[in-house]
Each structure stands twice: as structure tokens, then as C-alpha cells.
């Protein structure tokens, strides 16, 4: 009894701790720097969140399945580049944009399926497979572009990530949409239940008739599709496609997932935790920019926040299990 309520509470507790931190930062910054809560800063934050937020979801889902996906950035750039190439070759009209987006999503899906197949069928550790995958997909991206960015993309495509609806950036709406889909996938579908069970114990899930290979491939395919979504957003946001955009996001997304309470051993992690952790990191990052603090301090602070929150939850949990 105690144990499971603890587990439930623990995941929620991390989300709660993150929420408290976020509120404190927002209040402090709001009071000292009124601009922080101004429309344009909020908008700015909402524009930044989707790219790495969606990547973090991909990382999260792979980690819940007991793996990890280090190839996300590679997938993002490769599918972004494919989208750009398709768009340019089809003339840049609306039809070409839709085709390009579909092409990008299928590239993400295929890359993910490839990862998933090797991880699930050949049973090679996910860390290795996706690390090789990162190299491989970035390599293909580099072969396509030969280095320089692909530019000259249609204006209307650029509006996807740079436009707003009712003052809210479209990217943020996409992000909310993806969050809802992810919640649905993880909490309300057979797949979601299976992925948590499989992440907890691969052998037992097999002995429960769960098709591990299918779930693994599905997981990495979803992760890959998230990667390509982020890729499309990046291409649209930067109105160009290149093989090295977002190269710093791999470790960042790992940090976000872990900070959001996703257990690297698999089977545990909730969407709300990860969303809170994405928001907190963005708040910290924007605050530091407003405060004109050196970027290194930001890196330092992320590590510190991670360790402090993990330590705090550990201490609270230990005290609770004592009484």
C-alpha cells in the first residue's frame, strides 16, 4: 500500500517540486523585472519551448520503455532536410509543403523503426544503437546537404513556427497538441500500458503475451516522429535546414526527462513531470538572459537544480518511509 502510494506521490512530487520552483522564479522575476511577465517575453518563451520540448517527449517515451534515444537530434535534422529538399523540388506551393511534412514524418518514423528493430530484435543496448543512429542520420543529412544549409524555403512554410494565432505562437499550440496526444497515448491506450509494463520488466511482459518487439518498434517510431516534428518546427523556425541544428539538445533533453522524474531504468515517468521540467528550464533560461547572467552559470544551475530536486525527493521519501 505504502509503497505504491509512495511511487505515485513521488512522481507527482517531482512535478510539484518543479511547479513550486517555477512559481518562485516567476514571482521573483515578475516583481524585479516586470518585462519578464510581459507579453513579448511570454511569447518568446512559448516560441522556444516546442522544439526541445517535443524532443524531450521523444527521449521520455524511449526511457519509459527502458531505453534511451540519443538519435533524436539526428532524426530531427535529417527529416527537416528531407522536408526542405522535397519542398524545393516540388516548387514550394502549399501542396509541396504538405508533401514535405508527410515526407519528414515518414523519415522520422522509418529512422525510429530502424532504431526500434535493432534494439528490439537484435537486442542491442539502446544507448549504443541510438548513438550510432545519431551518427548515421547526421551523416546522411550531411551527405544530402554537403554541409551548407538549405535555404530559399517558401514563406508560408516559415509561418508555421513563426506565426501566431490569437497571440499564441503556432509552435506552442503544436506543443500543447502533442502533449495531449502523448497523455492519451501513455495513459489511455493499450500501447501506453504495455510500454510501462515492458519498461518495468521485459521478461515478464513477454510472459504476459505482450509483443515486446512491436512495442519497442512502436516506441522508437513515435520517438522518431516526435523527432521529425521538432525537425519540421526547426526548419520552419529557422527557414532553412542544416545537419547541425540543435546539436546541443541531446543532453538537454536527457536532462529534462530525468529532471521530470523519468527513471533511466525504465517503467516510470509522467507527462506532467516532463512538462513541468520543460517549463522550469525555460523560465530559468529566460531569467538568466534577462539578468544578463553568463551562459555558463545556466549550465551550472541546471546541474544544481537536477541534483537538488533529486536529493530533496529522496530525503522526503526516506522520512516518509520511516514513519
Amino acid at each position, binding site marked *: 500500500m505504502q509503497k505504491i502510494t509512495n511511487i505515485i506521490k513521488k512522481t507527482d512530487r517531482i512535478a510539484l517540486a518543479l511547479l513550486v520552483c517555477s512559481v518562485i522564479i516567476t514571482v521573483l522575476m515578475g516583481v524585479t523585472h516586470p518585462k519578464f511577465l510581459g507579453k513579448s517575453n511570454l511569447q518568446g518563451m512559448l516560441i522556444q519551448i516546442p522544439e526541445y520540448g517535443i524532443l524531450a517527449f521523444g527521449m521520455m517515451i524511449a526511457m519509459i520503455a527502458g531505453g534511451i534515444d540519443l538519435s533524436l537530434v539526428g532524426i530531427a535534422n535529417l527529416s527537416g532536410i528531407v522536408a526542405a529538399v522535397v519542398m524545393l523540388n516540388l516548387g514550394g506551393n502549399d501542396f509541396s509543403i504538405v508533401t514535405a511534412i508527410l515526407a519528414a514524418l515518414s523519415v522520422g518514423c522509418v529512422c525510429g523503426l530502424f532504431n526500434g528493430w535493432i534494439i528490439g530484435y537484435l537486442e542491442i543496448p539502446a544507448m549504443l544503437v541510438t548513438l*550510432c543512429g545519431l551518427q*548515421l542520420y547526421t551523416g546522411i543529412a*550531411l551527405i544530402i546537404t554537403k*554541409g551548407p544549409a538549405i535555404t530559399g524555403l517558401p514563406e508560408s512554410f516559415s509561418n508555421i513556427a513563426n506565426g501566431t494565432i490569437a497571440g499564441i505562437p503556432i509552435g506552442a499550440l503544436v506543443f500543447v497538441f502533442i502533449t495531449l496526444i502523448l497523455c492519451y497515448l501513455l495513459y489511455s491506450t493499450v500501447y501506453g500500458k504495455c510500454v510501462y509494463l515492458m519498461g518495468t520488466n521485459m521478461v515478464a511482459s513477454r510472459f504476459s503475451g505482450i509483443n515486446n518487439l512491436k512495442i519497442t518498434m512502436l516506441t522508437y517510431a513515435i520517438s522518431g516522429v516526435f523527432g521529425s516534428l521538432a525537425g519540421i518546427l526547426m526548419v520552419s523556425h529557422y527557414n532553412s535546414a542544416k545537419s547541425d541544428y540543435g546539436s546541443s539538445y541531446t543532453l538537454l533533453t536527457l536532462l529534462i526527462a530525468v529532471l521530470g522524474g523519468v527513471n533511466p531504468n525504465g517503467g516510470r515517468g509522467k507527462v506532467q513531470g516532463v512538462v513541468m521540467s520543460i517549463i522550469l528550464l525555460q523560465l530559468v533560461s529566460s531569467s538568466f538572459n534577462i539578468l544578463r547572467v553568463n551562459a555558463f552559470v545556466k549550465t551550472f544551475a541546471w*546541474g544544481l537544480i537536477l541534483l537538488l530536486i533529486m536529493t530533496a525527493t529522496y530525503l522526503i521519501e526516506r522520512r516518509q518511509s520511516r514513519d
Partner: protein
Amino acid sequence: MKYRIKTFLTTNEMIVVYIIIGLAVLIGLVNPAFNSISTVVNLSRTMLVTLIFAMCEMMVIVSGGIDVSFPAIACLAMIATGNIMLKNQIDNIPVAFIMGALIGASLGALNAILIAIIKMPPLIATLGVSSMTSGATLAIFGAKIITNLPGKLDKLYKVSLYTYTNAEGITYSLTILILIPIFICLLGWLLLKFTMFGRGIYAVGGDIRAARIAGFNVKGILFFVYIFSGTMAGIAGVTYMILMRAADPSVLMGSEMMVIAAVVMGGTRITGGHGTVIGTILGVTLIALVKNNLIMLGVPAHYQTFVVGLIMIIGTSITSLKAKHIANSIKV
């Protein structure tokens, strides 16, 4: 006896050996310049620092953990040592190494506290420490590269054990610093194979609860492993500084995943409990061979990333599949 030979020929280590040989033959055929003693010298030099990292990573993984903080620790050790020595006009080689080792050890101890006492998953703990360390390093010491190292330190890179001059008059000298990884490998081998403490590391990685029940000092072992890893990372940082004749506060960042890949290719199981020194050396050799002979192979620049990825994935697949096959076939 026949059975023994057969199992020996199909060990993970031997599979990596086959891949290395295959690759070497291929490169040698494409570019005869490869078939020379210089290749051995070059390869040793290339592997030098990576091998130190890989050794401590291997030990950490064997104990059931993982460490992604060593590049940050090495960078801090390198730049801090460089700065302190310059500021205080110290020009003493042992002092440099001791300083690097101490800095590394203290950060390793931080890892150990988080993992062994606070019981944080190792990936989380070391990721956090890595982020903090690299941020602090740049904030404290700045981004500036130090190139005016103290004289003795600066000259050490030229001291060599063995020099080979080829027909064109190019000299290939094997630096004396190669002794550091050799020493560490030897030490690691003795420790892991022949001391109870080393066996304890395997025991902890195999089943931490059983290790506790058996009476191993599990906390002590974890502390040792992470402090050892930190210390070695510090030493690797100083070694790197001497070899490159410069201290750079962020140059090693991002190398962690490649090192882990090398270690796992060498037969260390990411889940802990399995791993050998020989395997690790072979894994590092394989990756070094791939990464450093693409020009020899004539691979065009923008294909190189892809080719490295391809060879890595083939390498891991073959070793993993073979290992799986072995595990499935024998059951007594």
C-alpha cells in the same frame, strides 16, 4: 580442451579482434601507407587519453553504474591545474598530476555520495555533476585556452620511448605518456582479476543485494569506483593538456558517449557485472581505427560521419549478436 579453444575463439574479445583485423586488412589494401609501424605508433597516441577514460568507465559500468561526468571532470582538472601552476610559478610534473588527480578525486567523491548514499540513479547523478562542473569551470576560469604552459610540462610531450623513422624521413615517436594508460590497464587488470576488492566490483554489478548479504562493503566499493574514475579522469585531463600543449576548458566535452560505445563494443555489458580490461582496450582500438583512417580509406569529407556510424553499428551488431548467440547456446 577442444571445447576450451572453441569458446576462446568465440569470446567477445576475439570477435572484436576479427573485426579489427578485417578492417586493418581493408585499409591496408586501399592504402599501403597504412602497413607500417607508424600506424601502431599513431594508433597508440590516438588511443592514449580515450583509453584512460574507457578504463574508468569500464570499471563503473562493471559495478552496475554509468559515468557521464568524466569529460567535465577532466576539463576542470586540466584548466585548473594549468591555471594554478602558472599563477604560482610551479613547474613540476608530479605536482601537476597530483593536482589533477586530487581535483578529479573530489568530484568523483561527489558522484559517489550521490550514488552510494543518496541512492540516485548513476546516470542522473553524473549528468548533474557534469553539468555543474562544466558550468563552473567556464564561469571560474573563463574560456581562454592556456598555451604558455610551464616549461617542463610543455616539453614532456616530446619525450618519447621509441622513435620510428620511415623512408620519407618522417619520424613517429611514441610518447612516454603512453605509460600512463599502460600502467592503469595493468593496475586495473590486477585489481579486477586478482583482488577481493576487484571481485567485489563485479559482485556489486552482478547483484547488489547479494553483494550486501555476502558481506561486501558495498558503499565502500561504490565510493572507490567513482573516486577512482574521477581520479583517472583528472589524470587524463592533465595528460591531455601535456599532449596537446594546451589547456582548454571545454575541449573534451561531448566525448562521453563515444567512450561508452567503445567500452560496450569491447564486451562490457551495459547492465553491469561483465567487462574486461582486454576487451576495453580492443573496443577503444576499434573505434580509434575507424575514426582515424577514413582519409586513408579515401572517404570523402561529408561521407565520414555516416561511415563512422555505419561501421559502429555493424561492429556493435556483430559483437552483440555473437554474445547473444553464445549466451543462448550453452545452458548447463
